[in-house]
């Protein structure tokens, strides 16, 4: 889990060893495995993972819409594992909108207030209602429309307002921007972040879009195959991935991975990629077993290329495999032994395919992954 946590706010939501099974036609699907994590007060937590990783199931269990097979969920000191959703005081924005078809957009938005028995006049003057309508750019004409007439994006906005309008303890958002067009999504992302600052409440946000998670969250929880992979700040997740899955899932273009052999020569740790070698920083000493194969990972922006080997303290000879002109940057794929490595260079630099080129790594940003467990070796001591 998170190691350097200076956020000492009290814990708002706590999941302990949650397990969830679904029963398929023949086999039992273990959708969420021994999941434990927490969200602090006023924190914006994003749950990130590929589809089918169990993030939506987890959110639905927090909401009380899905039964928990084992484990417990706590809101502050209150155990809510088996509590009816209506008793949990949560807001939930559904990915598929779930708007009430027989109510107008306005009635949908204020529905949670009506359920609470707040008088109509008070609702009409509700400050947050007007704030939300304005911030989420909801057209006044849309308010009288019925859900049937809405586009996907408009329906999601309505669902978002319905979620945020109430004074809940925790707000749960399930891919709330996924049906909007690109331009609107970016704008609404900013609005959502602004609302979070204003409301000062705990938000849990499910998404498969890493950009969204990074832009919004104070802390990101990454899941795959129902297992928690890593929980940490966006910076930690990016620069200190816990395992190869996190490293490969985050970042665009993705991290370069290559098979390497670790050797100890004259007290120095050397990584061989094919017949080329590079020094490993001293901090690895004593933490890693030499004479063994590892997966070396390095992000494209930590890879540098030049036609002149003297530009680097230490470099490896390789060939330009693919050169792509992308506008503001150019992308070069070099071939080092049998491995292909992607890097980005300035738009003014051009290389010819097949030409000789020297490649160098920022050694402090190299990661080594265990071939069997796929765990990151340096995650534990960096």
């Amino acid at each position: 889990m998170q190691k350097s946590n200076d956020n000492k706010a009290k814990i708002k939501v706590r999941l302990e060893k949650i397990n969830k099974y679904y029963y398929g036609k023949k086999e039992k699907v273990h959708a969420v495995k021994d999941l434990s994590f927490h969200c602090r007060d006023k924190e914006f937590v994003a749950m990130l993972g590929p589809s089918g990783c169990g993030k939506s199931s987890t959110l639905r269990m927090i909401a009380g819409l899905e039964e928990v097979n084992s484990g417990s969920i706590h809101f502050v000191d209150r155990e809510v594992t088996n509590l009816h959703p209506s008793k949990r005081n949560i807001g939930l924005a559904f990915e598929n909108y779930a708007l009430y078809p027989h109510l107008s957009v306005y009635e949908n938005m204020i529905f949670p207030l009506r359920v609470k028995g707040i008088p109509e006049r008070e609702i009409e003057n509700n400050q947050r209602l007007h704030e939300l309508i304005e911030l989420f750019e909801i057209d006044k004409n849309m308010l009288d429309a019925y859900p049937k007439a809405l586009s996907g994006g408009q329906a999601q906005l309505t669902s978002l307002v319905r979620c945020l309008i109430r004074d809940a303890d925790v707000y749960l958002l399930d891919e709330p921007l996924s049906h909007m067009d690109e331009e609107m999504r970016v704008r609404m992302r900013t609005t959502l972040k602004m609302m979070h600052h204003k409301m000062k409440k705990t938000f849990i946000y499910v998404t498969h879009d890493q950009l969204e998670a990074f832009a919004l969250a104070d802390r990101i929880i990454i899941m795959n195959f129902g297992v928690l992979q890593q929980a940490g700040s966006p910076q930690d997740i990016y620069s200190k991935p816990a395992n190869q899955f996190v490293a490969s899932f985050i970042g665009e273009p993705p991290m370069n991975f290559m098979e390497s052999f670790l050797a100890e020569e004259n007290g120095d740790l050397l990584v061989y990629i094919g017949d080329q070698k590079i020094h490993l920083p001293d901090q690895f000493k004593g933490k890693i077993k030499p004479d063994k194969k590892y997966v070396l990972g390095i992000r494209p922006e930590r890879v540098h290329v030049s036609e002149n080997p003297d530009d680097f303290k230490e470099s490896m000879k390789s060939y330009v495999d693919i050169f792509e002109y992308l506008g503001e940057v150019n992308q070069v794929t070099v071939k080092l032994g049998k491995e292909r490595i992607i890097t980005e260079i300035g738009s003014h630099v051009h290389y010819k395919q097949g030409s000789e080129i020297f490649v160098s790594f920022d050694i402090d940003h190299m990661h080594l992954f265990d071939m069997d467990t796929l765990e990151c070796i340096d995650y534990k001591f960096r």
Partner: protein
Amino acid sequence: MDAINKLSIGRKTIYYILLILVAVYVLFPFIWIFLTSIKSSADITGYPPKFIFDATIDNYKNLFATSQTGAAASTLNFPRYYLNSLIIAGFGTILSLIIGCGAGYALTRAEFKSEASRENVAFTLLSFWFGPELAIILPLYVIFNKIGLIDQHITLILVYQLIGIPFTVWMSRSFFRDVPVSIEEASRIDGYTAVQTFKKITFPLVKSGLAATAVLTFIFQWNNFLFALVIGGRNTMPITTGALGFISYEAALWGQMAAAIILSSIPQLVLAMFVQKHMVRGLTFGAVKG
């Protein structure tokens, strides 16, 4: 009707002529019965049939007269039959709706081992509808006779559930299936309990469909003949079997019989007109998503 409006005038004329022919064909027996009910007995049996005659409401009057003419009429009690029909079909429909809608709702929401087993349960219930009434009528008679429940309203109400429940289950299931589960989930999140959710969210969305189901169930139960003939008796005879009494060895009171039939079809007609809009939707078994 939109499709018809787009057609050329020539084609439109052909369509309307065909539609009128169908209407005449379908309505003819009904019109014939109605005319018979307002004819005197001499006109009814006269040949060739008369289309122009002196209308009379004697047949209707005689239905409600305490001392009726003719030998067959002595035991006839039309108002009683009418009331029996109303009681049996009315309570039968209410019972079918309560049980059938509960089951229909459960069939769409409850967790089943697989989708196939869900369909199997639903289809098993529906298949009770396919069974020939004649096949079960004798065992039913024996059972009810043994427990001394022959000729009681409750008996017919229970037996009519064989007609009502499979139908209400199947119909209501199709309506409940059209209500997304996520809407109910949203309502629970927003603070409604399960019962409130059903009352405030689910029910308003299915009520028109259920109204159509109720009307159809009522009509099926009102029209039933065989169950009423075998299991009903003197006290519980509904209008369908009661109308038979107008024919006897001595005489056939065609006019009164026609009047009885006309009166007995009024509730169905009124109800059908009332929910006509939802009826088509209901009859498609929810196959067409709205």
